[in-house]
């Protein structure tokens, strides 16, 4: 009887142990399964993110190449033609005795056209933008806006400028161009306040206009705003847009400085 009860006890203990072990195994397998799934998901996200960045990079490179070709074409071809036209006008002015006033006006118009063309050519020229200081490029951009006589543009710089790598500078400049372009196309503004504030290792750029504004929450992002956000992510900068209907828009860009030793050789 004693032996029999021992066997029963062993059966209970053994059976319970097996069932508990199965329970443990199930929990263990679920935890491992979830962990593996999470790893796979994270890897997939990482690959998608890398692919997106590479695609954007390729898009930007293509765009820059197009800008560069366009810039050269404007400078070498149309620029030359305008210069030739101006030369011809000078020759006509020397040989002709009539219409001096009209010829002089035409020469002035040609001068303006050549000057504007040069500015446009420079803003499109990747190498030129990379070589020049960002301040200089922005001033040229604002000067072009002022010349239209539709906008008043203020430009303020505070703090001590620091180094930003040429590639990041170029993309930053394209973001600024895009936001100025948005103001021209959509804002209906008459005044643009542009400020660059260097504090510690962060450059804060504020572009404020007195235009119609929009509801940030309810307005879907257009191509321009999407471009700005994507480009901003590429250079590890942050973009903040503040706007209210009828109260204008402020776009702020926050970008960190680069280590000069690791910068361009």
């Amino acid at each position, binding site marked *: 009887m004693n032996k029999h*009860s021992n066997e029963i006890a062993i*059966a209970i203990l053994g059976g*319970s142990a097996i069932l*508990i072990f199965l329970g*443990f195994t*199930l929990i263990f397998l679920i*935890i491992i399964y*979830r962990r593996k799934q999470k790893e796979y998901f994270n890897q997939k996200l990482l690959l998608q993110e890398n692919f997106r960045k590479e695609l954007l990079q390729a898009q930007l490179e293509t765009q820059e190449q197009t800008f560069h070709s366009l810039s050269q074409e404007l400078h070498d071809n149309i620029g030359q033609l305008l210069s030739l036209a101006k030369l011809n006008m000078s020759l006509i002015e020397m040989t002709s005795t009539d219409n001096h006033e009209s010829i002089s006006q035409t020469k002035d118009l040609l001068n303006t056209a050549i000057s504007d063309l040069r500015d446009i050519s420079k803003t499109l020229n990747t190498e030129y933008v990379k070589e020049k200081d960002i301040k200089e490029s922005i001033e040229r951009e604002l000067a072009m806006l002022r010349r239209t006589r539709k906008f008043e543009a203020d430009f303020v710089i505070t703090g001590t400028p620091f180094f930003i790598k040429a590639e990041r500078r170029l993309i930053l400049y394209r973001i600024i161009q895009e936001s100025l372009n948005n103001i021209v196309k959509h804002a209906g503004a008459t005044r643009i306040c542009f400020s660059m504030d260097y504090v510690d290792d962060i450059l804060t750029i504020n572009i404020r206009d007195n235009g119609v504004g929009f509801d940030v929450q309810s307005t879907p992002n257009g191509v321009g705003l999407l471009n700005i956000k994507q480009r901003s992510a590429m250079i590890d900068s942050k973009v903040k847009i503040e706007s209210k209907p009828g109260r204008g828009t402020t776009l702020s860009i926050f970008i960190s400085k680069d280590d000069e030793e690791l910068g361009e050789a």
Partner: protein
Amino acid sequence: MLLWIIYILLIISNLTVAIVRWRQLRTPLKILFGLLAWVLIVELLRRYCDEKWKPLLTHLNISTEILFQFSYFRMLLHKRKYPVLLGGIIFFYTALFLAWYTEHDFFMHSYFLDGVFMDLCITLWTGLFFYELIQKPLQYNINRDGNFWVNCGNILYYPGTLLLFGLNSYMKNVSPDLWDRLRPLNYGLNLTIYALYLLAFLMDRKRKPKML
């Protein structure tokens, strides 16, 4: 005695933590609070009542425990699993009725066939929870879900006590000494489940709606 005291203290800790974190707890865990309060009352009554009433209290505890667990899983699982839950509870009470019908003083004996049925039902329901869990979105953090820990406790405790309930009466008759030596296994499993329930009450957090 020591294990029993630890067991009671653990249930009281569970109840205290649940009360302190009540606002952060989700509804299924609030139902478990009810179960634990009930278990505490039954355990104290069983400790101090006359020996002949102990089996009745255990049967009463089993029938009530399965109702609490049914409500818990009803709140927890997807509504499509409701027929399985209902099937389980109908199976349990039918079996209980048949046991009583066959032997009218079934509730006064230490033959806990109802315990076996309860273990089977709850093990099945716990399995359904884990099945749902592996299908949840990956962003879902199982460690922060109190229900994961509750069901870890369930999957260890309920299958683990299946044989103890089933062979309880037989072992008591064949060898009461040996049965007394097996009792710590039951307490050990009780401690495990309530330790994991305590973890569940500590970890559970209502998810805030995400702004996307």
